[in-house]
């Protein structure tokens, strides 16, 4: 301080005090420069950290894929609301009849009866609906899921095996393939029961192979087979096959567009999970971000994007697609309204 004072005393005329206007200008320039630096740093940070979405590599599809190609013929029927059922009516005490005209009513009655605790009776109605319209995915799905939810895996496999053997359509085969997936719940929980689970998955994949050999754009079979492959231990080499199927599933979302289903976010989530399980975390996030671009309100994709990166790498045995995580085989995701 002393030397500064001395300096002032010694050089009073060399650096005269600047007028307030110049000081103001200097302050302004300083503030401006700081702002510019801040902006540059911010821009740089954004460029480094901003999410970059690369276009997904998807298979090319023929120009005119219709609902039949997708395996969703009659999806409007599947969307019909269940009719109200008065369970105190005498009608529902009777055994069901195998009548396709009654299928929707029987489906509704079956679900209502199970809801009231009459499992055996309710299942008989659901079975009747499925038997009367064996190619109807909705009735098959409702009966199959009821069996699954009540642990009747053997009955599930037996019924849909017989049905697929009797009526050889993609839909009966898909229902059987899903029954095999459901049966994995009967295996011991991992890390036990891995062979049991894998054998059921193999059976499911075999069935879906036959469907896709004839109907390569069946979106349900594609997604079902892709998910089957996704859950295998990675070293068994199923991930490339999962990737292939799920890329198809995303490509097929475009022709699916007319059906406002809940499915699209699931397809993006699953394909991202393939990459995550393979350790390709950036590629996984890219898929989910692509999904977000296409489906801005997809909360499922938000939750995927919020997972810490190190947790994604541990996906092999993790809670998303790890060994022993049960897959929900509810096929109504393909026709239930999501918007």
């Amino acid at each position, binding site marked *: *301080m002393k030397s*500064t*004072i001395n300096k*002032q005393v010694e050089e009073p005329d060399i*650096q005269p*005090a*600047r007028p307030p206007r110049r000081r103001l200008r*200097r302050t302004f*320039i*300083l503030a401006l*420069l*700081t702002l510019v*630096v*801040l902006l*540059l*740093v911010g821009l*740089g*940070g954004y460029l*480094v*950290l901003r999410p970059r979405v690369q276009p997904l590599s998807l298979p090319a599809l023929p120009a005119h894929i219709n609902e039949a190609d997708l395996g969703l013929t009659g999806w409007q029927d599947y969307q019909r609301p269940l009719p109200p059922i008065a369970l105190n009516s005498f009608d529902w005490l009777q055994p069901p009849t195998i009548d396709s005209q009654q299928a929707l009513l029987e489906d509704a009655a079956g679900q209502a009866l199970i809801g009231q605790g009459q499992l055996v009776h309710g299942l008989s109605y659901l079975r009747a609906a499925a038997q009367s319209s064996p190619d109807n995915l909705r009735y098959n799905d409702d009966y199959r899921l009821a069996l699954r939810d009540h642990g009747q895996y053997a009955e599930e496999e037996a019924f849909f095996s017989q049905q697929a053997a009797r009526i050889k359509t993609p839909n009966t085969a898909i229902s059987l393939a899903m029954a095999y997936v459901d049966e994995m719940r009967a295996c*011991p929980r991992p*890390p*036990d*029961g*891995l*062979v*049991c689970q*894998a*054998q059921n*998955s*193999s*059976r499911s994949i*075999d069935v879906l192979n036959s469907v896709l050999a004839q109907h390569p754009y069946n979106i349900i079979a594609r997604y079902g087979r892709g998910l089957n492959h996704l859950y295998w*231990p*990675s*070293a*068994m*080499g199923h991930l490339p096959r999962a990737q292939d199927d799920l890329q198809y599933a995303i490509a097929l979302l475009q022709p699916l567009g007319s059906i406002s289903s809940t499915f699209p976010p699931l397809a993006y989530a699953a394909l991202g999970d393939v990459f995550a399980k393979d350790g390709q975390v950036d590629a996984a996030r890219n898929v989910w971000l692509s999904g977000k671009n296409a489906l801005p309100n997809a909360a499922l994709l938000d939750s995927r994007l919020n997972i810490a990166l*190190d947790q994604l790498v541990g996906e*092999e*045995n993790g809670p998303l697609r790890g*060994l022993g995580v049960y897959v929900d085989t509810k096929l109504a995701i393909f026709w239930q309204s999501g918007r």
Partner: protein
Amino acid sequence: MENIPKQTNRRQMLKYAAQAGLSLATVAAVGIASRSDWFRNLLSGQQQKSRKWTAFQLRNIAQQADIAVTHQKVLLDHKVDNIMPWMASVGAAVAAADYNNDGHIDVFVSSSGLNAPCHLFRNNGDGTFTDVAAQAGIADLNRDGGVMDAVWGDFDNDGWPDLYVVTWSSPNRLFHNNHDGTFTDVTVSSGTGDRGNGNAAIWFDYNGDGLLDLYVGNYFPYVHLWHLNTTRIMHDDFENARNGGPNVLYHNNGDGTFTNVAAKLGVDDTHWTLDVGACDLFNTGHMDLYLANDFGQDTIFKNNGDGTFTNVTPHALPIDTRKGMNVDFADLNGDGYPDIYVSNITKEGYLVEGNFLWHNNRDGTFTDTAPQLGVDKAGWGWGAKFVDLDNDGEMEIVALNGFVSAGPGDYWFELGTMATTPGLVIDDARNWPSIGDKSISGYERSCLFVKQGNGYVNIAEEAGITDLYDGRGLCIADFDNDGLPELFVANQGAPLLLYKNYPQQRNHWLGLQLIGAGHSNRDAIGTRVTLTAGQRRRVKWVDPGSGFASQSDRRLIFGLGALDIIENIEIRWPDGHVESITGLPIDRYHILKQGEVTR
């Protein structure tokens, strides 16, 4: 103080701006670094490297000890050539006992190849061993069949250990100790020559008559593996196979003969038993059986105390589809109930089963605590033992591993594909893909799990366990009587290893050699000893030969850490008699004979 206006020129202004920019860039860089966990990883890596485990410095002294021999594998019928590396993957066994009563622990080591000699390494007491198997009459055991396991036990209570040898496809052999360094084959007269294809045997007194009985764990069904009539000899399921050879329980008749009572007592289990252990699992004073079964559920036979057993597996254990390879017991929390360690198979990306550490719930059930304690992942598991290597009173776990170490190819993919293909008849060896020169979980490093906090960490490499052999039998024994146990490792088709521990700091210890009398077997197998020191209980049992292809030193060593006073020792002998003793000097072995202990 006078207010002096700042005099700033353009250069200074630019300098300030640059400093501000630099500061912001630094903040941004730190932010980015913290987002990427780079900094944290760097720090944790440095912490990892700085950790030292000076209490565990293991060195292989096999060469100096003159035990540098290599195990020879079996070569079976050429009909199973496609999977011969799998078939020939067992047989390296080791069993410890002081067969000549000179106060030093000796060791029998198997070889399995045709005409390959087995070894009896007599402990010279000076850090070296001499192979005396030929003079003893127990070298030439591979003329017909192949040796798989061996276990010492004084079946006639004459004070001299006898030897039972388990072989494939030829009668098992029982050798009576002649008290002069030689043995007499009494297989035929004793009736113990089971012709099964076993991998395990233990001596224990199941019915409390004071005589050691013999339980044999069989693996393959009753076929002659060198002269096969069929190739349908394999397990028929990877998760629940029950087409193995029936296990055998030889009841000691007390006159030099034995009778197989396994079927009568319901313990003729046909799972693919790889190891057998026995301990008082339910604190009833009787020894219960634990069978480590390959390809499915392990089995617990509870000893009813009246010469019968009850299969309590469904109640005691959860469903288990794993590949049981080894069983060992220790009371980890001093509650007087043994906990159980079981080796299984872990192969990342294919089959992550994990080993079991069954916590004894004291209500007849067990809960697997291996994952939470960090002792589950140990490769393709084989012999595994609890051991207090540094005598601090905490048990470590040594777990051997490695299946087939061969060429660079990996058979796991073929194995996994076969196992998961529905409808494939896997019990037919012809349906198995050829293994050729491929490895199967080869070149794995054994694990040494050491207690740290509430769990365990694997410090094998840091401690000096660096070999990559296919480990099989693991024998824990104090060959030099210094109170620090050594690890004697029998490797499949590879040299023996003898790991000696050279800790920097020595803890106190107490060793006990127990001799049963009255209605207890002389080997005192099954005796429970409870030592109290520093107001903490430590409980150990005299072991019957548990552990895959191995038998450890039967003497009990209690690690005391810094404690130099023992408050009490309570001994519950096999016949139920209880004796207590106080004031035993520490840091040495004591021979305690039943009925002469209390003071």
